[in-house]
Structures are given as C-alpha cells and as structure tokens.
C-alpha cells in the first residue's frame, strides 16, 4: 500500500506491505522499490490509526517507542483503517486469514470517486443504458411521442411549401415579371391562397396535438418517476438518508424528476424535429441558389458560437447577482428567525448594518450588470444582424440585374425565418443536455444506492417475547472512530435496563443499534435468541415501541398523531393510551379535543404535551420492547411523577430500555448499565453500584448536589452507604 509522502519527509516510507510474519516498509526509487525495514509481527506492541486534519497516519509501537508507519492525506483513511484492522488480527494470530476488504471508493474504470454508498460510477455508466432505464422507470409512452413527432415532421414538410407558394403568388399574380400571361385567372389565385390557409390551419392543429402529447406524456412520466423515487427514499436506511438534507431530497423528487421527464418528453422529440427542418430547409435553399444559401448558412456556426459566448458571459453576471441576492435574503431570514436572540442581546443596530451592507452589494452588482448589458447588447445585436445587410446587397444586385424576382426574395426570406427556431435550439442544446444528465445522475444516485440496512431474503417475523442479548458489539458512525466498544448486556422480559453515562458516550447509539437503525460492525444483538439481522425490519419496528428525545409530530390532528403507530386502532384503545401517558387530561381541555389540528397553522403544543403524546403513541400498539430515550426530560417533576406511576404499569411484562439523565427516572430499573468512553464500566442494581463507589456513585452524588443547589429535593432515599 502506498502512503503519499508528505513533503516534510516525516513518513518512514513511501510504501508498506502487511504480511503474515510482519510489516515491510520500502521506498520508491528509479529502479523499483528499496526495502527500508522489516518489523516482525511479534515485535509490534500496538498499532493505531490516527486522524489529523486533512491527513492521517498509522502509528505503531515497537521496543517501547512509537514510530510512524505511514502518513498520507485524508484520501487514504479507509485503506489505512482497514490496514490497521488487518495488522491487529495478525498480531493476535499470525496464521489467521485476513482479507483486505476496504470498501471501494474509486471506480476501477475511470479512477474517479464513487458516490457514497453506491457502487455505480456515474461517469462510466453507459448513457444509452441510463436512458433506456429511465424510459422504463417512468413508463414513458414513447410510441405516442414518436407518433406526434412523425406527424409534426410531415406537417413541417408541408410548411416548406408555403414560401414557394408565396413566390408563385407574387411573381405570377401580383408583380408578374414576364409579360407572358400564363392564362391564370383570379380563381386559380383564390385556390392558391386557400391552399396556403389550409396548410397553415393544418400545421396549427397538429401543433396543438403535439404540444398536448408532450404535456400529457411528460406529466405522467414525472408522476411515475416521483413515486418511484419517493418509494426508494423511504426504503433507504437511516444512515443513507441522514447524509442528505431534507432540502436536497425534496429537490431530487420535485425538480430533478421534472428536468428529466421534460428532457425525454419535450426536448428530445423537438430536437429531432428541428434537425430535420434545418436539414430540409437547407437542402431546398441550396437547390434554388447555392450561392445565396451558402451566404446565409455559413455564418450560422459563427452565430451559434457568439450565442454561447454571450450566454456564458451573461450567466456569470447573472450568477453574481443571484448570489448577492441570496446572501441578502439569508441575512434577512436569519434576523427574523432569531429575532428573539437579536432583541435579547440588543443587537438590532448591528443587524440593520449587516443588512445594509448586503443590500448595497446587491444594488451595486445590479447597476454594474445593467450598465454592462446596455453597453454590450447593442453591439452584439448589430453583429448578429450584419449578415442581413450582406444578403440584402447581394439580393438587391440580383433583382436589379433581373436574375431574381421579388417573389424569389420573399421566398428566401420566408425560408430563412424558418431557420430561426432550429438555430436557437442548437445554441441552447448543450446547456439542456448538461442539466438533464446532471438531474439524471442525481436521480440514479438514489435509485442505485445500496441500502445499508436491508432485510435478508430469509427474514423472519416471529412474535417477540422480549429477551434482548447484546453480545460484544462494537460500532462507530465513522469507519475509524468507534463509539461503542465491546459492549455486552442482557435483559429479560419484565426487566428494565437503565443506560447511564456522560453526554455523548453512546447511549442513544446503543438504542439505535437495538432498533436496527444501523447495523453493528462487530458482535451481534439478539432478540429471543435470534440475531436482529435475521428479522424483517417490519417485525422489529412493529413490536418495539419508541419514545425519542426529539418528539416529532406530523401536521394533522392530535388523534392522527396518536394513532400513527397503529392506524387501525379502535378509538377506545387510543384514548386509553392517552390516559396512561397523561395526555388525555390536556387534550380534553382544548376546544377541539382530539380533533385539534397540530402544526404551523394549528395549535402549537408545549414540550411536555408533546412528550405525553409521544409516549401514548409508543405504547399504543402494545409493544413487547419499549425504548425510552430521555422520555421525560421535558416534563416537570410533578408530571414526571404521575407518569412514573403510569410507567410502573407500562413496564410490567415488557422489556424496557431507558436512557435518562435524571437518575430519579431510573429508580424502577432492574439493572443499570454505566457506559464510559464507549465501554461498559459498571453493571448492577442501584444499590450495588452505590456500594461500589464507582462512576455511578459519582454521577448520583453530583446530581444530588445539583438539585440541592437548584433547590429541588431528590426524592430518592439514599442507600445505607458507609461514607
């Protein structure tokens, strides 16, 4: 494995290799590698991965001194962590078969990074294949599109005839160039005009049909795509979703899908049409007067390039304005969101100044942009129209010389104007393509993501009794930093486990793992003797009740929120649950009681009311396992006490796992688990732990002091400790 040598030369080697017997380090020379040193595995006392800021290194201990094995920039961290793991395994047992299994983060084909969690490279993906997948996914009715396109093309060809007709009318009827009367009558003229009118009418009817087709096909494709995407997002595990913000996901479902479907159902067919029109008009013009045709068609590529340059230029200006505007809006948003804070600290003047600065910047940029725009545009327009003067001169010459008729000129002008739309299209096409392909890749980014927590095909769905066994688990949200290390604990039905420890030690993490929101890295969690990875996620979620720290209530009625866990519940069940948690009393005080609408436009609940609704929600479906994550943190001691009494009923025959900072909530606990630095520090009952005078004892005494300082008395009876 190669470490990227950092220029301060602090790494011992460029390259190191891990073998069963030890580690060899080498340096790269012109002629290959030159070995530097050999470290036998039995001489290595410890090895550790250390993360810096922007870099990382592997440090090992030999002969009681620390050495750096290799140092590299942050890109190597996955590989380094895996290497450390392999080395540690070999240190324990030199004969173990370790397989280096770092997750692939680079596409083997183009060496570019893979999007997180996905094994498909967006660059190497066969675009045609992607298109085909999209068409399938969105159930695009491409045959309808094909039909409308063909029809439109046919009709457009009709349109090509119109300028010729104009020529006939002018040359033969209105301004006949020859004195030869061809025996034409008014009635023939009338027929020609009628023909023109008829073809125009037909063209417009077809256009209506075509646009209608675009709209219907496009819309149904969008809706199908959105549905599939949303479904996929719901299937994603918590780990995957947490990496993306809500705004991002909303954009993907709403905007990216629209971008894609509009590309497939509108842009592509129109592109085909316009290309054909361009080609046919060009051919006709060439057939008539190749010199004129050349004069008109040749500058076209130049025009397109000018358009592109102009667009890039204006885009830059516009972008700057957009950013300044957005910044000013952010300032406003911040101030209004945090108006309480602003007023409390008396910083109004500062905030006004801040906004002034931002608004002035917007004004300055807008003025500058307008000035530039008004200076540049006239020249650009003139340049673009220059061709017209040249053509006019040439045509004028030909007409005066009698080689061309007015009719011819009208016809040509008509053809040229037909070219206008395809040209505008050609100029816009690259941009549209880029937007569509970017949206496409963003959508497939989600569709192709491997779910991190997935049901096995053999997933079971038994009725849970409530034996929970956590066996030697280790887990970290990061690959190189374990939050929980070798945690083991067992709980029986009817028991309550209290998890205690300082903030951030991993209590909520342990609960997340038991709920299988994440999978453990080492060890296993078993419920009723079966590994939770063998359960279907539905089985777990439907039989575990959870009250979390953040109580999220959806916008809906109070009843809808209560019944969320079990929509099929009977009204009595719901009310009983509400009574148990103490929510019923405050609900009945509201004018609309259970029908009260919650949310921004509705009633805003207080923290305690939220929690009581949350608790009722958790117990509604009578779960065998109940998880409480600081469930009573927002409640005052009186309400908490009343819920405590309810809890005593609640936890009978149930397996309860609870986290609380307030140790009084844990006095019902059968067993207490004290975590320290991610490991199990102490397990026992309250009395046992108080007697052992360890971390738990310290926490309890500290809390008692706190409550004495604040003036509330802890109602726990102190044990008979002999201190």
């Amino acid at each position, binding site marked *: 494995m190669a470490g990227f040598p*950092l220029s301060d030369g602090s790494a011992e080697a460029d390259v190191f290799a891990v073998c069963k017997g030890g580690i060899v380090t080498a340096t790269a020379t012109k002629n290959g590698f030159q070995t530097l040193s050999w470290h036998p595995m039995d001489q290595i006392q410890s090895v550790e991965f250390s993360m810096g800021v*922007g870099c990382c290194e592997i440090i090992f201990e030999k002969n009681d001194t620390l050495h750096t094995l290799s140092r590299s920039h942050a*890109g190597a961290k996955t590989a380094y962590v895996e290497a450390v793991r392999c080395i540690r395994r070999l240190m324990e047992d030199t004969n173990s078969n370790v397989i280096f299994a770092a997750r692939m983060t680079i596409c083997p084909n183009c060496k570019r*990074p893979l999007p997180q969690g996905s094994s498909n490279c967006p660059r190497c993906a066969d675009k045609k294949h992607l298109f085909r997948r999209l068409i399938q996914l969105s159930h695009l009715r491409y045959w309808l599109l094909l039909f409308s396109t063909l029809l439109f093309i046919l009709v457009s060809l009709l349109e090509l005839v119109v300028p010729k007709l104009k020529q006939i009318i002018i040359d033969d009827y209105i301004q006949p160039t020859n004195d030869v009367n061809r025996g034409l009558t008014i009635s023939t003229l009338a027929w020609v005009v009628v023909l023109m009118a008829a073809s125009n009418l037909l063209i417009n009817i077809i256009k209506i049909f075509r646009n209608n087709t675009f709209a219907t096909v496009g819309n149904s494709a969008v809706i199908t795509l959105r549905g599939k995407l949303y479904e996929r997002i719901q299937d994603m595990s918590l780990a995957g979703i947490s990496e993306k913000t809500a705004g991002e996901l909303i954009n993907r479902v709403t905007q990216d899908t629209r971008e894609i479907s509009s590309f497939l159902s509108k842009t592509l067919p129109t592109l085909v049409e316009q290309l054909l029109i361009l080609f046919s008009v060009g051919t006709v013009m060439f057939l008539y007067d190749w010199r004129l045709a050349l004069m008109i068609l040749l500058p076209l590529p130049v025009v397109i390039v000018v358009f592109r340059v102009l667009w890039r230029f204006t885009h*830059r200006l516009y972008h700057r304005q957009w950013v300044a505007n957005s910044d000013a809006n952010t300032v406003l948003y911040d101030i209004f969101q945090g108006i309480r804070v602003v007023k409390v600290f008396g910083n109004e003047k500062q905030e006004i100044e801040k906004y002034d600065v931002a608004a002035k910047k917007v004004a300055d940029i807008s003025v500058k942009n307008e000035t530039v725009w008004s200076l540049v545009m006239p020249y650009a327009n003139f340049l673009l129209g220059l061709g017209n003067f040249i053509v006019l001169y040439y045509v004028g010459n030909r007409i005066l010389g009698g080689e061309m008729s007015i009719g011819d000129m009208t016809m040509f002008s008509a053809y040229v104007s037909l070219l206008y739309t395809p040209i505008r299209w050609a100029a816009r096409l690259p941009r549209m393509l880029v937007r569509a392909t970017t949206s496409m890749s963003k959508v497939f980014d989600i569709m192709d993501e491997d779910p991190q927590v997935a049901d096995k095909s053999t997933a079971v769905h038994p009725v849970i009794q409530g034996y929970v066994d956590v066996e030697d688990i280790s887990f970290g949200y990061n690959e190189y930093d374990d939050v929980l290390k070798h945690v083991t604990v067992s709980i029986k039905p009817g028991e309550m486990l209290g998890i205690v420890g300082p903030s951030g030690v991993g209590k909520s993490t342990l609960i997340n793992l038991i709920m299988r929101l994440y999978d453990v890295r080492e060890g296993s969690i078993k419920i009723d003797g079966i590994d939770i990875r063998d359960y279907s996620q539905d089985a777990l979620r439907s039989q575990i009740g959870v009250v979390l720290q953040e109580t999220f209530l959806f916008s809906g009625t109070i009843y809808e929120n209560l019944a969320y866990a079990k929509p099929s519940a009977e009204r009595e069940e719901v009310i009983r649950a509400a009574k148990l948690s103490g929510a019923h009393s405050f609900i009945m005080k509201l004018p609309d009681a259970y029908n009260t609408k919650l949310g921004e436009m509705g009633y805003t609940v207080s923290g305690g009311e939220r929690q009581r609704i949350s608790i009722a929600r958790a117990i509604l479906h009578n779960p065998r396992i109940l998880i409480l994550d600081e469930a009573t943190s927002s409640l005052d001691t009186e309400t908490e006490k009343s819920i405590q009494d309810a809890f005593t009923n609640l936890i009978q025959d149930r397996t309860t796992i609870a986290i609380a900072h307030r140790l009084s909530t844990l006095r019902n606990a059968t067993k207490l688990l004290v975590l320290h630095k991610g490991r199990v520090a102490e397990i026992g009952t309250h009395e046992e732990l108080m007697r052992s005078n360890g971390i738990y004892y310290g926490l309890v005494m500290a809390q008692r002091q706190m409550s004495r300082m604040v003036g509330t008395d802890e109602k726990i009876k102190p044990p008979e400790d002999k201190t």
Partner: protein
Amino acid sequence: MENMENSRLSKIVSMNRLTPENCRFSLSSGGFLLMERLGETSEMMGRVILHRAFPFEYPESFLAVMDTEQNELGVIQDVTDFDPETRQFLRCALARRYYMPIIVRIDSIKERFGFSYWKCKTDQGDVSFSVKDTYRSILKVGENRIVITDADGARYDIPDLIHFDKKSFRKIELYL
C-alpha cells in the same frame, strides 16, 4: 462547601496556560511531541497532540495541548512564548497534524454529474481531486480566503483570492 464549589468551578474555567516555566517539550525518536510538566515534581506526560483553537485566524496561538485520551492538559498562548528550539518542535507537531496544501493555480475544473473534478498546482505539487457538493464544499473562512474540502475530506487552501491567478479565479468564480 461553597469554597469547594467555587474552586472547582474556577478550575474548570481556568485557561491553564503552558509556559516555559511550567512545562518542557521535546521530540521523541519517532518524531512525536512529548511534554514534561515542571514544578515541585516533574511529571512526564507522554505523547501530546496540539490542536488549534482558531485554525484560520491564529494558526500559532491558542494551541490546546491534549494527551492521547483527548484530555486537555493546557493551552499555549503563542508559540513565541517558547525558545526557538521548542518553537521548532511545536511547529513540527502542527505540521504533522494539519495538512492543507495551498492552491497556486487551477488548471481545470470539470463538472460532471454533480461532482466537480479539479486539477490544480499546489505548493506541494500537482494534485487532482474530486469535490462532491461543490457549492457547499467551498468554505469562506476569511475576508478573501477560501478552503475547499474534497470528497475524501482532504482540504485545500486559497489564502488570497484577490491576488490569485486571474485565469484560475475565473474558473472558480461561479462557485463563490
């Protein structure tokens, strides 16, 4: 009891400033920074890690000195508090822990599929890296200074946008 509370609180908030009078730094044979507490009883604290409290504003001041368990042992107000030799040790330790090449010139930025692929010349050599969410990975950390974080977490610094190479600035302008 009151005094116990006060002294405990003041202990929590005290800066615990490290000076040449109360500590000594040295480098181990492996190049790691070691600290020894001086005083009535000298105590070898073992390997320590430096962490900048203000990495972008004061790179050589307010350096937290932590042991391998991430416990803060004290704070170095400024490296100039120490003699030149110790200053070298401290700077060495900082260089080990922080790695942020300075971009001197941007050769190209290609945007494909939501990623942007950069090819730059830095003070550490030529690099090419990919940035995941371009707009959000470019951080403004000073009046004219930006830091770019790539998809792997590696960081790149452009300390002065005003005096930055004009052509390169053009390439990055749209993301600012």
